[in-house]
Structures are given as C-alpha cells and as structure tokens.
C-alpha cells in the first residue's frame, strides 16, 4: 500500500516538475522546478520500487544507491547549469540581484 502511495506521489511530482519547466518564465525558475521535482519524484519512485520488488536485499539496496546518486548528482548539475547560464549572460527576471552587484 505504502509503495503505491510513493509511486503515485513520485509521478505526480514529476508531472508538476515538467509543468513547471513549461510554465516558469526564465531558466533559473525552471531549474527550481526540475532540480527539486526530479530529485524528489525519482527518489520517491525508486523507494516505491525498492519496497515493492521481490529482489534479494542487495537488489533492493541498489535502488537506494541509484536514489542516493540522483540526490547527489542532480543538484550539482542544476547548479552547474545555473552558474553557466548566468556566466553566459542570461539575465534573471528578479526583484533583487546581489550576484550582479558583486560581479559587475
């Protein structure tokens, strides 16, 4: 039961992440949507799979390894893309931009 809940939650979150990617106005806000929702949704689905699978215990742990790797790598890549986007001159739609103050 609980794994079903996790699965549905993960799919729900991933769908809203994709929707956010389409709806938000600029790269940085889109990155918000994908970085959080992809990580959260993927981890949730992988947890559900680990709970539901009848693999041996190490097989289940492998799902967790994937989840952990996603949790480690996804924010890193998001950060790298955000920084690169800023450096390559994409201006954020923002009320305050302290980064531009310090790096004119």
């Amino acid at each position, binding site marked *: 039961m609980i794994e079903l809940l996790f699965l549905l939650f993960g799919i729900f979150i991933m769908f809203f992440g994709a929707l956010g990617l389409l709806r938000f106005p600029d790269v940085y806000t889109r990155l918000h949507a994908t970085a959080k929702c992809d990580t959260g949704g993927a981890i949730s689905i992988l947890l559900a799979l680990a709970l539901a699978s009848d693999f041996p215990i190490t097989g289940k742990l492998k799902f967790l390894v994937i989840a952990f790797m996603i949790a*480690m790598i996804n924010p890193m890549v998001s*950060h*790298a893309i955000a*920084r690169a986007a800023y450096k390559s001159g994409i201006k954020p739609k923002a009320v305050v931009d302290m980064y531009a103050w310090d790096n004119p």
Partner: protein
Amino acid sequence: MKMSLVVRTTTKLVAPFLVTYGAYLTIYGYESPGGGFQAGVIFAVSVILLMTAYGYRRTRKHFPLRTVQLVESSAALFIVGIAMAGLAFGAFFINFLRPYVPGGTVMTFNIGVALKVGTSFVLVFYILSRWVDRD
C-alpha cells in the same frame, strides 16, 4: 579551466565510487551483466568527470598522458597475449584456465578489455581537450 567549487567537490566525491563500480563490473562481469566494455566506459567516465571539473592540466598531473598510453598499449598486448597463450594448450583463444578457475580466462580477458577501453576513451578526451581547454 576549472568549474565552480560545488562541481569540483561533488565530482571528487563521486569518482571513487564510480571506479569501484567499474571494478565490480569488470570482476563480476561473468556473473552479472557487464563486462569489459561497460566497465571501461565507467572508468573513462570517472576520469572525464574529473577532467571536466578540474581542467585538463590538473587532471594530467594525476593521470599523465604517457601512463595512459602505456596502460592502453599494454592492455591490448595483454589481450593478445591471452589469445596467444592458448596456442600452448592446443588452439588460438582456447579457454585454458577453465579447469582451474570458474569462468577461466573470461575474467582476465574482461580486465584487459576494461583497461583498454577506459584508457582509450580517456586518451581521446585528452587529445580533444588539448585543443579546446584553456588554463
């Protein structure tokens, strides 16, 4: 050229696990899916990650171009050597270790292929970044 601090450190944290995973694929290639080629790609990916994060110059200090070439050539020689060693046991490429070790020469063959493939891809990226990379 270096990338930001977060990227550098995360790649550094991930790389040893990747190498371990590649070693696992090499050694247990005969029990689970995987084998030389996949493991080689994983080895290469771990070095390429470091190279992307730290730049070519810094990575080259840890894994010099000469060493990479040396490993590549000797791994290739090792594979042919396994094949030629079979001649002493009757046929080219015969699995002469099978009576003694489960799987026989498969594991040694996989190790050779993994080193070969990994160093090959690293070499390709080294040559490319000589042209692209500043710093």
